[in-house]
């Protein structure tokens, strides 16, 4: 009996996993394990001991391999616009790549922009994860709860925000916490050799800064390109072989990214560099460097989520537990 209980409890403790299907929604996911990994050593965040606080996560989770892109955002924007109480042309709805047709009340996407990382406010990114958590329902409540209760979104007279700080337990999708983001980008269970965990300084499994340049020229990031001169954006996933230890792409370049974690009641953590910053980008890519931003700022984001529990595993667990009970 005890062994059955321990077996079941052990399984539930190892992941944010829910029984039943959790859709993939067409996202390309990377699963992050190594439960209970350590935080960075001071030597891995040289000179910045504060950065040693982040990166430990004690559960399985998954993250989208790239930032949310415009084609994914388009579906959300068209579903949400009927409930949106601001101007449909507001940047937090359109980003750079959507345009609104008032005659039909829908957005369309610029040609060629399908894989452009979207930029939006933290609160709108939160609504996106609500919508995913609610099965992409078009009903108004689906956007206002699930991961984050948007009725908490607001400001105190002293300008501090009242927003819910962490995603609601049980949500299937959310904005990655800063720990999750750091772990997904920098932590490697085999950093110093097989089974010897550690952290890379850069998000492409290296302690050397990523090489800036176009992919066809051997580049590893578009962050060091010059915006305007070298183009205006680049598709997410343009460097498919430049990966974090967990297979995440575009940790450098693309868009700077929101995380869920609040620095305080004024700011949330953001991290990563963005397309076209020019030289100097590499500092943002360092594990020990982060920044903070008001919720009203415009940044990219990726989605974190539970790992769906496979039905076959559930049956095996049930069968095993029965077997153990019978043998006693």
């Amino acid at each position, binding site marked *: 009996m005890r062994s059955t209980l321990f077996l079941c409890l052990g399984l539930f403790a190892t992941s944010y996993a829910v029984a039943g299907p959790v859709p993939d929604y067409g996202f390309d996911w990377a699963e992050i394990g190594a439960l209970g990994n350590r935080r960075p050593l001071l030597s891995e965040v*040289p*000179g*910045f*001991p*504060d950065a040693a606080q982040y990166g430990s996560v004690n559960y399985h989770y998954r993250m989208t391999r790239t930032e949310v892109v415009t084609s994914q955002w388009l579906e959300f924007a068209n579903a949400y616009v009927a409930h949106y109480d601001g*101007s449909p*042309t*507001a*940047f937090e709805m*359109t*980003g*750079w*790549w*959507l*345009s609104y047709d*008032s*005659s039909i009340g829908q957005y369309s*996407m*610029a*040609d*060629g*922009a399908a894989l*452009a990382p979207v930029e939006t406010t933290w609160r709108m990114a939160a609504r996106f994860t609500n919508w995913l958590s609610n099965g992409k329902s078009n009903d108004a409540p689906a956007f206002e709860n699930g991961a984050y209760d948007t009725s908490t979104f607001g400001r105190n007279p002293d*300008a501090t925000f009242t927003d819910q700080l962490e995603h609601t337990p049980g949500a299937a999708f959310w904005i990655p916490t800063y720990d999750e983001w750091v772990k997904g980008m920098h932590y490697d269970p085999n950093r110093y050799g097989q089974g010897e965990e550690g952290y890379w300084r850069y998000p492409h499994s290296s302690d050397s*800064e990523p090489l800036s340049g176009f992919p066809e020229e051997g580049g590893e990031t578009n962050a060091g390109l*010059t*915006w*305007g*001169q070298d*183009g*205006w*954006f680049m598709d997410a996933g343009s460097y498919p072989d430049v990966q974090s230890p967990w297979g995440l792409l575009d940790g450098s370049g693309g868009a700077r990214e929101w995380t869920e974690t609040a*620095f*305080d009641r*004024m*700011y949330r953590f953001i991290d990563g560099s963005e397309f*076209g*910053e*020019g*030289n*100097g980008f*590499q*500092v*943002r890519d*360092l594990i*020990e*460097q982060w*920044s*903070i*931003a*008001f919720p*009203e*700022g*415009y940044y990219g984001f990726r989605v974190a989520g539970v790992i769906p529990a496979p039905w076959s595993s559930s049956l095996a667990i049930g069968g095993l537990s029965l077997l153990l009970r019978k043998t006693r």
Partner: protein
Amino acid sequence: MNKLYYLVFLIVSIFTECVHANWSVTHSGLVLFPTITRTQVFGTSLPGTVWDITIDATVASGSSFGTINLQSTNNDSIRYCTITARNGSSGTPKFIQIGISRQSGATFPAVESVIRTSSSTADVQLVLTGAGQIGGYGIDLFKVDKISELSCSGNLDATITTSVSGGSGALSPQIGTIRSGGDIFGSILCSDAGGQILEIQSTAGNIGSASSTVTIWADNNIQTIEADGSIYADIDVGSNPGVSGGNLLRVVANDGVLDGRIRAGKLHVPTMSSLDEEISCTGDFSVDVTLSDDIHIPIIIGGDFLGEIDCDGSLTDTSGNWDGRIEIGGDLDGDISLEASGLVTHIYVNLNDDDSEWLGEVTVGSTTLGPGESGDNESPYYGVLSSTLGGGAIGLVPFNFHPKDCAPDHGSTYSSGAPTSVEIHHYGPVKDGDGNTSSTPPVRVYEASIYIDSMYGQHKNVEVCETAVWTEVTSGFDYSVSGRVVTITNDTDSFATDSVYQIIPADLVCDDVTGNPDVVYVSDWVGTDSCTGMNDTDGYGFKVFGGFGMFDLNENFALETGDIATWIAAPVDLDDDLDADALDLAALITAVANGQE
């Protein structure tokens, strides 16, 4: 010996860190540790505990950059922060990122100045976040090679510039993100060669004020300037703004006015981009715009246009996702000029549908349209062909038809048999109100015999409800609506010779206008005039001659003196030289005398 060295190093490090009790200092990539001195300052107006801080740091030989982070640990402001950055070994240009912020739970009320010294041999990139206020206490100067990020929860009032002598050239001049939770004042300058400004945003306030305009200047491109409220700014892009190149993508006043100046090369949209690049404001637009090139993005004005646009290029959408257009909710009470054939898209006025007016001049090449002009150049219902202007139009809501873009021209005589289709061109986009041109046609078509009883005078003076003259033939034709054009095509009925047609809008509304107001025709054909139960509108009309043709001016199927009297009363061009003059009268007299055309 090594142990002694490390002991000394440890003691010095601890000592160094202790004297910075109010400022947590972390760093990497530098030679040993930076020399950081801070001096508490008294007697200033800055809030909290006030410090002057100097930093002298050298990038380590094996690094291309170093980083220093200063964090307020208590309630600390900075009056002066002066940085000397050193390249260390000669050769590869290097830079130091200076991060200034606060620890969670601490406050960083204000910072007045951060400057890289001219004696520096390395560049400085600044990231400053978490401050309450930036500038505003009289010093107000931030001067480093690259501003990666500058944000505060309160007001920002300072000169921010990347023009600083010395350094290493490791960093290209760029201002990344400037974000304020309050108002933004001062100057934001990235005017060195290649300089770019990516984002300036006031999330809960204004940029500038009616009495204090912000100066913003980038040599190359400006990506976005956005205020929650209004923007009062002089915005320059280019080495010689308004003359040289330089792209400006987006300026948005989310709830207020746009006031000041814009000088750039192009108002431009990237190659693959959305239509969200725009210049827009919900209130009045009082900006003098000077451009050496095209307008590729929308200019959306909720209130009145009170400024001026002097564009050496075109208002155009001819490539990719370009969407150059000007849409004004209120009055057009300023001047707009474009190059010859430069009106490719449109300028709309009175989109609020509140009786706003076209009061200024629009000049396309050498053609000026406006209320002070005459003939075909007189607004709002000018007669200059769209093809002459570049294909576009200037439309006052509710949109009228364009008398000379139509085919046939309004009031004209069609003498090449009978047309199989008719096109009514409007000054703005139109659409069928219910989207079903079969059940509720967009227009009503009325037909009359070319013969009209003299008691009525001319057809154009007879309202369509006068059944003694007009017969409605709407159901006999097919209709389609696309863009600015309504097309009427023969179906069970046909346009006929020796007939006159008058057409009025029925289920036809202005497209792309909030509320889709009804289209209303304004012309010299009376339309519905005193007809009861019909919307008040004038008509679009034309004649189809098959008989005596053009000399039978009184339309009685005879060439006689009455035609001469008709010409004298209302001279018309009979010899097709675009003038109604004595030559036309002479031709008419000859025709009447000879009893032939």
